[in-house]
Each structure stands twice: as C-alpha cells, then as structure tokens.
C-alpha cells in the first residue's frame, strides 16, 4: 500500500471522505502518496490548492484510477472496474444489504473493506463511520422535522395564548435515535423513545426523555433480554403501545435498524392514518425498507396531510460536518490498516468483505441472499 487515490463521488453525494488536514497526515505520518481527482471537494468550498498545499497530487480521474493501489471512496466508484492488479478498495458499501455489489470484485485480486462492517466496539469507534454518520443524521432529522412542522417545537406562553410543545416519538434508540432525542429535547420538545434493546432504557433516560415500555408484570420478567424472547402477547402489546404513542405524537423519528436485515416495520399504515394532520415522520431506515409503511425511500411525500420523509442519508445535508468526521474515520482506519501487524485482526477481518477476489466475511458467505 503506497498510493492512495480518491475520485469524485457520484452526483448525489455531498460528502467527501478525505479533507486536506487528514490528507496531509496520511502523507506525513504514514508516508503515503495521495492522488486526488481535480475538483474533488469544490462543492464544499475546498479548492484543489488546499489539497496541493497538503502535499496531495491532483490528477485526472483516469490517472488516479489507474495509478493508485488503494482507493478511498464513500459510494461505489462509477466507471471503475477492478483489473488483475493488486488493489485495495475502502468504502461504505453496505454489502450485507446489497450482496450484489460484491459480484464485480470476485476473482479479481481486489481486496474490499467496507467500513460499515467494522465491529461496534469501543476500540473501533474512531473509525466507525456508521456512528459518526448516524449521529449527524439523528441531529439533522430533528431539524428537518422542525422544518416541515408548521407548529412550534418548544412551548411558547404568549399574550395570544400558549403554543404547546411538540411531542416527539423516537423509534430505535441507537446512535441516531439518541442524537435525535437530545436535539429534540434541546429544542424544547416533549420526547419519548422506544427500542427493543433493554439497555437503551437507561440511555434514553440519561438524556432526560421518557422510555416507552409495555407496562405490567410482563416487563419486569422479561427485562434484560426481551429483545430475544418476545412472546406473541408481548409483541402485540408493544405494537398497540407504539400505535398509541404515535397517534399522540406530532413528530416521529424512525431510526430502528437490524444490521444487514430489512428494517423492522413499526408504524403500520393504520397507525399513520390515525396520526394528527400536520405531523411529520422522518424515516431514517428508509433505505433498509423503512420503519414506516408509507415511507418512500429517498423521497419526501405528503400522505394524508402528513409529511413523510424517507431519507437514510441525512448526513449528506450536513456535508461539512459529515466530511470532517468521515475524513477522520478513514484516516484512522488507514492508519490502523497500515500499522496492523497481527495475523488475525478482529477489526480488519470483520470489515474486510473480499480478500483478493474471495468473499472472506462469514456474514456474507453464510447468507448471501437478501433477507
């Protein structure tokens, strides 16, 4: 690994995965050569000269693609076909969900790392693109919802009456969900959250929000592990509860996901129909099928006087911040990769999808068909 190459991302992508600061670190700390396509980050207001100042060589797309032995990218590289030469490709390919994306690399001497597969351990956090993007997306989701919501988020007691605070329901309290909770609370909304993992209960409360849970003895009994052993009755109760809380809410932020699987359906059409006009649903699980039945991935629709945003890439709307974090994540990963000496390295093994043209990741070999 000597020459790192980056080419422009596809049109829809606003983020970049290497900023001048980290580029210069790659060059200085890791003694790598960095080649970048001209005009790479112009849309972010970062000129080519900023990269040149950092020691990067700016070249044409074709040059970069042919010269670099390691390619960094966020999305699949348009017009790139792996050849016979030893190549490393690092990106966020979500191949667990799109197994067809692996095909073109098979048998090609190419090694592919997909950063979304990094284990979610404490050690890997500095390279964890899912965390950093989810975090920004969660923040953005609330701003987005507030933008569509034609009423006020905080309470306003005024001489002309009181505007009630918005009621926000967050489904899924992972990184994105927690950030959404925090942002909505900051804006003065009344926030409730739901998740199947019982450990999130404390986490939700630690942000001052209410955790929605099925009441009664059931809960206590199953506490600690009901994500696994959910009885039929329990599931039904849970569903009713979500229906009920959603009906009451003005904003629903959906973030529930199951890695590599279709996202769980939490807001059935009937529930959406029962919601107040003017309410807003932001479904961040849209790409994985959505938590809401009416979501259309990548689109913002009006359904029944409700606004339903289906967007799994909200971080793209905060492109500066997102690029900053991505750039750090990629740099940390590269550094780890270069400095790794161990034979079997958990982080690398997990994030490697294809090793020299062979699928090495058991997650993909075991169940290649989409679930």
């Amino acid at each position, binding site marked *: 690994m000597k020459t790192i190459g980056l080419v422009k991302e596809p049109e829809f992508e606003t983020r970049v995965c290497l900023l001048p600061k980290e580029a210069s670190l790659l060059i200085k700390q890791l003694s790598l050569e960095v080649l970048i396509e001209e005009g790479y980050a112009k849309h972010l207001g970062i000129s080519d000269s900023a990269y040149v100042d950092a020691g990067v060589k700016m070249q044409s797309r074709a040059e970069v693609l042919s010269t670099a032995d390691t390619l960094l990218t966020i999305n699949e590289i348009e017009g790139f076909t792996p050849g016979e030469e030893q190549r490393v490709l690092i990106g966020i390919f979500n191949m667990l969900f799109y197994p067809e994306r692996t095909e073109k690399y098979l048998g090609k001497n190419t090694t592919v790392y997909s950063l979304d597969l990094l284990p979610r351990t404490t050690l890997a956090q500095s390279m964890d693109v899912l965390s950093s993007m989810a975090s920004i997306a969660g923040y953005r989701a609330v701003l987005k919802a507030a933008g569509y919501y034609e009423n006020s988020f*905080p*309470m*306003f*007691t*005024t*001489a*002309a*009456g*009181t*505007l009630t*605070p918005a009621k926000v329901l967050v489904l899924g309290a992972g990184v994105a969900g927690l950030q959404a909770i925090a942002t909505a609370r900051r804006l*003065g909304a*009344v926030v409730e959250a739901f998740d199947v993992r019982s450990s999130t209960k404390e986490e939700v409360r630690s942000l*001052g929000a209410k955790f929605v849970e099925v009441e009664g003895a059931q809960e206590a009994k199953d506490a600690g592990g009901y994500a696994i052993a959910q009885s039929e009755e329990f599931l039904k109760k849970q569903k009713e509860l979500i229906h009920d809380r959603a009906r009451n809410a003005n904003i629903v932020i959906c973030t529930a996901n199951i890695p590599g699987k279709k996202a769980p359906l939490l807001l059935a059409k009937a529930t959406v129909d029962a919601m107040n006009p003017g309410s807003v649903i932001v479904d961040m699980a849209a790409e994985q099928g959505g938590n809401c039945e009416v979501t259309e991935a990548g689109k913002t629709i009006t359904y029944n006087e409700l606004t339903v945003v289906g967007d799994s890439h909200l971080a793209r709307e905060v492109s500066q911040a997102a690029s900053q974090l991505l750039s750090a994540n990629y740099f940390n990963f590269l550094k780890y990769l270069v400095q790794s000496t161990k034979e079997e390295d958990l982080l690398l093994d997990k994030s490697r999808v294809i090793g020299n043209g062979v699928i090495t990741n058991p997650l993909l070999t075991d169940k290649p068909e989409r679930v």
Partner: protein
Amino acid sequence: MNVLVDVGYLIATVSFLGGLKFMSSPKSARLGNSVAAIGMILAVLCTFIALKTQTVPTTNIIVIAVAIVLGTVIGKLMADKVEMTAMPQLISLFNGAGGGCAVLLGVVEAKQQGIGDPNIGMQLLLLLGLVTGAVAASGSAIAYGKLAGKTKDNKGAAVVFGSRILLGLILLLPLLYFVGLLPISFESTAYALAIIALVYGVVFVLPIGGADMPVVISLLNSITGIATALAGFVYGNKAMISGGIFVGAAGILLTLLMCKAMNRSLIKVLAGKFKKTKASADTEVQNIKEITVSETAMQLSFASKIAIIPGYGLAVAQAQHLCGQLQQLLAKRETQVDFIIHPVAGRMPGHMNVLLAEANIDYEHLKEMDEVNSDMAHYDTVLIIGANDVVNPAAENNPDSPIFGMPIVKAYQSKQVVVMKRGMSKGYAGVSNDLFGMDNCSLLFGDAKDSLQNIINQLKLI
C-alpha cells in the same frame, strides 16, 4: 432529703441544658420544650421538698399554691387563645412577668436584707437583680404595647436624653450608697433604684422601631435570665444560676444572630435607627413589609401548596437552575409546587419557557394563568421571583393605570405572597405595584439568585 433536692436541681439543670440543645434542631425542638418543662417542674418540686425541712406557715403555703395555680392556668389560657401573629407580643408579656417577679423578689428581699447585718456582696447582687428585673419588666411591657400596636415609637430628644440620665443614676446610686455618701437605708435605695430602672426600661424601648421588636424582646429575655442568675446567687440555688446563665448567654447570642439575620447591627437597633429601605426614594409612600430569608424558608416549609411566579428578574439573575432545585427540594417534602407562567412575563414571548426548560422543570408543573386564576386562594404561599407588572392588581382595579385591563396572575388572592426583588424599582410598564403594600404580601430584597440560594440552604436544615 437535701441530697434529693441537690440531685433534683442537678437534673433540672441538665434538663434545661438538654432542652435548649434539643430546641436548636427543628426535629427535636418539641421534645426539647417538654424536657425543659419537665426540668422546671422538677425544680419547683425540689424547692417544695427543700421547704419542707423548714416550717413554713400555712398561709404562705396557701399563697404560694394559689399564685402558682393561677399563674399556670392563666398562662395556659393565654397561650391557647393567642393567634399565630400575636405570639411575639405574648412572649414579651410573659417575659415581662418574669422580670416583674424578679423586681418584686428584689424589693422584698431588700427589706429582709435591710434588717440583718449588711453583706455588701449580697446587697450588690440584690441591687443588680432588682435593676435588671425592672428593666426587663417595664421594657417588655412597652415592647408588648408596640407589637400590639398600642404604643407608638418615640424618638424624641427628651426620651433619648432621659434614658441617658436614668442610666447614669442607676450606676451612680448604688455607688453612692456603698461608699456611704447616700444618707438613706438600703431598703430605700433599693426602692428608688427599682423605680428608676422601671422608668429606664420604658425609655430604653420607646425609641426602638416596631420592626426591631423581636430583637429587643430577645435582649430583654436575656436580661431576665441575668436577673434570674443573680437571684440564684442570692439564694445559692444552682438551678437558678445555671438556668439564668443559660438564658442570659443564649439570649445575647440569639439577639446578635437575629440582628445578623435581619442584616442590622445591634447598636443601630438600640439607637432606634431604622434601616433605610430603598423604597424611601419613591414619592408615594407604600407601607411595605420586609421578610427575611429564614421567614420565607419557614413559610415554604409550612405550605403544602406553593405557586412560583417567575418574571423577568429570574432571567436577569439567571437563577433558573436554583429555581429548579428549590422545586425539587420542596417536592421531596411532598409540597406541591406549581409554576404559573404569565403570558407576558419576561421580555419576549416564551421567555419563561426557555428558563424553566433549561432548569429541567417538567411541563406538567407549569400552569397557565387562566387555569389557576380562579383557584389562587388555595395556594398557601406564592413566591414571586422577579416578576412585577404581571402580578400588579392595578391592572384590575385602577382604571387610570396604563396597564388597566391587562389580565394578571391574581397572586394577591393567595394566603401569603413573598416577592423577591432587588429593590423597589418598577417593572417594564413603569408603574408602582399595589400588591407590595397588601397585608398578605412581604418583600424579600436581594438578587434572586442569592435569595434563592439562601432559601435553599435554610430549607435543607429543616
């Protein structure tokens, strides 16, 4: 027999001590009162036992018994009947009684002393006891009159000057007597001194402002204690000495503490100098009542339903976090605390919402004005933190006021109102506030942040 008496007095002394000790913590205060009372009963019993060894004429016994029964019954009746607000007067009255007892004792004893051969030490103690008792007696009576509204302040030069002369006389007379320059008997000297001291007690208290009376009562109480101790020396009675000294010493410290709590110096209190309220700059004279932090804390601790009305001053003081803390503290004692947000409180719509959200106060504790206005009388205490215009009753009842017609939070209807502000400056609308002069309203001056912090500190002690 004598041993029993000794032990009894010892136990009485210890129980006074324990009683006082217990009384200084809110949790054990009632126990303390009982302990001290039991000690007192014991002391009296011991006295009777001691008397048994002598032969006391029946008449005397009857007189004693009747007097004790009468005193006890009347005292109990008075204590039962008195209203909460009239308690300070009553304490003053009782203290006066104690002082009166000391004077009479001195007078009678002076007569006895006059008979036997003179013992200068004894006589000195007697005269001292007489004087202190007399000052306490008449001073307390005047203090009672003032508190009951029957006596007016008098700071006339005559009074002040007279008091100096009398004090001089009190010091001079015994001196002259003892060096033998006074050609009258000890008895007469004592009588004269008693009368002078009685008058002195009157002129001593007369110039002092009504608001300072509690301090004065405490001081007089301390003086009674000293008189008691002196009498104790005369009779060689340990219970009297210790009880008297406890009260004397405790009373003086208490007096100083009370001054400190009122932010006044004892000297100024005694000189009758009244603290200039910042109100005095105002042309309109409003009869406002100040309240201390501890009284506010006491009110809050008694209340079971409290409303907090925040206003712009809370924001200026940036005291929202303390406000939240106060609410939590009170909630822990199962006090209901509602925040009433007036629509135009603060300087922008939703100003108070921002503050209270920052302090993490649950929306459920926020009440809208309209929701509670019909119900204000149910609040035991309303705490107004830096609000002014929004609670000004002029908006309801003064058609000439520029804010007439504006809806207000009817804080004035509640049982007690405490307003926290820094001085007497007006609110945004620039009109003076009639609420401040109302009977159920008191003002707690100071920056809202400081005041809240102090209230919280005091509440924590209870």
